[in-house]
């Protein structure tokens, strides 16, 4: 029997989601292809994968999950929906099927509490962590977090579950640091923001947090230019921080800063490795090769790295063979990508280090900030620590509520190996 590790890839490459999706899945697949090409797989086990088009639609996502579940010799060993909606729809199913679900930079935030959500891994960082780093970043720009007192920040958000994620944390942060928060929702899809920006002009905020998605982002940047609001005073969520968000806005985007759990740029050894082992052999997934190294592409590479590292970790315990979902879960839960490992991977500075534990499925929560200079994203900050205390508190509270609702008894991590 061939030694193959199957990975199901629910993807979206049509419609409004295509722009981001093609980059992300490109990076992810290229990384795995590179591992196969360069290393002959992980520990001698080849990686195989199959895409399944979800159109970013919950129902289609569930179908993909079910379709991919039994594929490969050990079944699908990890599911990464890249859609918060699909994540929610699968919360119960992955438990029953024993398949770990990894949600990097989206999904259900309180699932970071591994005691209640053993099968879910909202890794690297979550929306709540991100929101606190935004406040920290703005504070630093203002010359110290204490300078935030009396400042006014507009929270311009996509009027949806996604947009509302940042709300509670920011409100708490506003209380903690004494700034005032003005909430301006934008109706989906957000291609008209005249009224919001007139309000912003009236409010004259010190900063604008752009918690947008899709066309809402370039539209906001354009509208900011139109109202004369400085882009340098706008901080975006990571889903507003890719080339797809700034390029359409043209010059209007210059100066805009956005968060990221990975960074842009092709000048990392890991990207080089992909170029050498994959593109040189004409096996790359990207049709437009100039996009290798773009934000979404690199995000995809991060997905690949984490998946592969989990396999490696699990192989160390269970042996170099195709792993089941259960074994993979162990791998994720014991994932420890430290600075040294990052360096070995050629991803130093490319993504933050992270260590997953039984209780903490988030990892480091680190976020970096990049600024658009009109041509490309430039890194403008170091990895910023979230307000761990506040975020972890909220996560535990929320998870506890969920556990109660669902009648789940949280695991006792002290007892686990």
């Amino acid at each position, binding site marked *: 029997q061939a030694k193959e590790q199957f990975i199901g890839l629910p*993807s979206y*490459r*049509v*419609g409004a989601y*295509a722009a981001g999706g*093609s980059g992300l*899945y490109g990076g992810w697949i290229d990384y795995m292809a590179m591992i196969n090409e360069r290393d002959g797989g992980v520990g001698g086990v080849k990686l195989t994968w*199959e*895409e*399944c*088009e979800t*159109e970013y*639609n*919950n*129902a*289609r996502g*569930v*179908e993909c*999950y*079910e*379709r991919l*579940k*039994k594929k490969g010799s050990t079944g699908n060993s990890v599911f990464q929906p890249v859609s*918060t*909606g699909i994540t*929610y*729809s699968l*919360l*119960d*199913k992955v438990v029953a099927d024993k398949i770990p679900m990894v949600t990097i930079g989206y999904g*259900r*935030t309180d699932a970071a509490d591994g005691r209640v959500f053993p099968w879910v891994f909202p890794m690297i960082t979550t929306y709540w962590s991100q929101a606190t780093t935004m406040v920290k970043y703005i504070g630093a720009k203002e010359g110290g977090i204490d300078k935030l007192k009396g400042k006014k920040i507009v929270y311009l958000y996509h*009027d*949806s*579950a*996604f947009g*509302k*994620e940042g*709300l*509670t944390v920011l409100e708490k942060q506003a209380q903690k640091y004494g700034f005032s928060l003005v909430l301006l929702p934008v*109706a*989906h899809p957000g291609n008209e923001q005249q009224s919001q920006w007139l309000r912003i002009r009236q409010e004259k905020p010190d900063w604008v947090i752009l918690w947008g998605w899709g066309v809402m982002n370039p539209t906001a940047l354009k509208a900011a230019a139109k109202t004369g609001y400085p882009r340098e005073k706008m901080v975006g969520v990571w889903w507003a921080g890719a080339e797809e968000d700034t390029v359409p806005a043209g010059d209007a985007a210059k100066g805009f800063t956005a968060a990221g759990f990975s960074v842009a740029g092709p000048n990392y050894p890991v990207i080089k490795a992909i170029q050498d082992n994959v593109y040189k052999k004409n096996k790359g*997934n990207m*049709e437009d090769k100039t996009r290798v190294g773009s934000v979404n592409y690199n995000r995809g590479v991060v997905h690949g790295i984490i998946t592969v590292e989990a396999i490696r970790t699990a192989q160390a315990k269970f042996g170099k063979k195709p792993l089941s979902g259960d074994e993979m879960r162990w791998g994720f839960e014991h994932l420890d990508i430290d600075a040294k490992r990052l360096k070995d991977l050629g991803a130093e500075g490319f993504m933050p280090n992270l260590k997953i534990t039984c209780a903490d499925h988030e990892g480091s929560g680190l976020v970096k900030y990049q600024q658009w200079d009109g041509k490309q994203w430039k890194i403008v900050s170091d990895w910023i620590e979230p307000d761990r205390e506040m975020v972890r508190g909220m996560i535990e509270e*929320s998870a506890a509520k*969920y556990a109660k*609702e*669902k009648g789940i008894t949280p695991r006792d991590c002290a007892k686990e190996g």
Partner: protein
Amino acid sequence: MFYREAGQFKTTYAADQQIFPIRQDRLGMLLLLAVAFFFVPALLSEYWLKAILIPFLIFSLAALGLNILTGYAGQLSLGSAAFMAVGAFASYNFMLRIDGMPILLAFIGGGVAAALVGIAFGLPSLRIKGFYLAVATLAAQFFIVWLLTKVGWFSDYSSSGVITAQDMEILGYRFVSPEAKYLLVLSIVVVLALLAKNMVRSSVGRAWMAVRDMDVAAEVIGIRIMHTKLLAFAVSSFYCGVAGALYAFAYLGTVEPEGFSLDLSFKILFMVIIGGVGSIAGAFLGAAFIVLLPIALDVVVQQWLSGLLAPSVSSNLQLIVFGGLIIFFLIVEPHGLARLWQIGKEKLRLWPFPH
């Protein structure tokens, strides 16, 4: 030659007014039900039950609802997904807020809530017609989704607006396994489909069709237009509401308001049109078509074409083929798959003679 009415003489009107007056149809239906209830859960894999048949049944129910409104009563609506949302959120809240609420009652409650909302948004139909009405129903679509997102109470103040459906339990039995869920959904859908069939072949149904075909004449005959249209909105929304509740409880488990988007409304409308306007069977055929086609296309593309075509091309190819097939079917038979089936039967009746 196989499909003949000849020799089947009906001596009473009762016999002629059965749901399926022709014996072959009757037998066929019984067979179909037997297969659906006994063989399908025993033979088909979990994937088929969970990922295909359950959503197929739920969408059939929604399409049935819309078909009552659009197909039978002639009121074009683009808001069915919103009524599904009302049903889902209402059932959730019934379960949440009333202790010991039986699940079936919660579903009915969800349907009734949707029906009430449906009546409210149906009121304009008394004056507004055709595409004007269709666009106006978008008001319902967007308003309801907005309201569910905005008012935390509906989602029990969950930070993301997502609700997690409670477990389904009837008389102490918990519906957890795919087979159990499938059978529950199937039973509900079969019962509701039967009720719908009865309605459309009785005087309410005739009143709906009369209003659809020519409302001025209908009124002259003595049909109360307002009553008839609002009833259509109510019944239709009820069906959509129950479908929404099942969508949340028996299929996805968790839903968010945005999940009930305009896209979903369009999908349901497609099912109605492709399946056959004004046909109960059409709702099922249409749902099967619209649920299965994209999956089939994706499977084909992923299995056989994934290496050959660039990924973005193959994904877009699916979209093109999907749209193209819809157009193709509309051209082949504007009255839908149900009509195609009927014509097939007519041909069978004549067979082996061409006419």
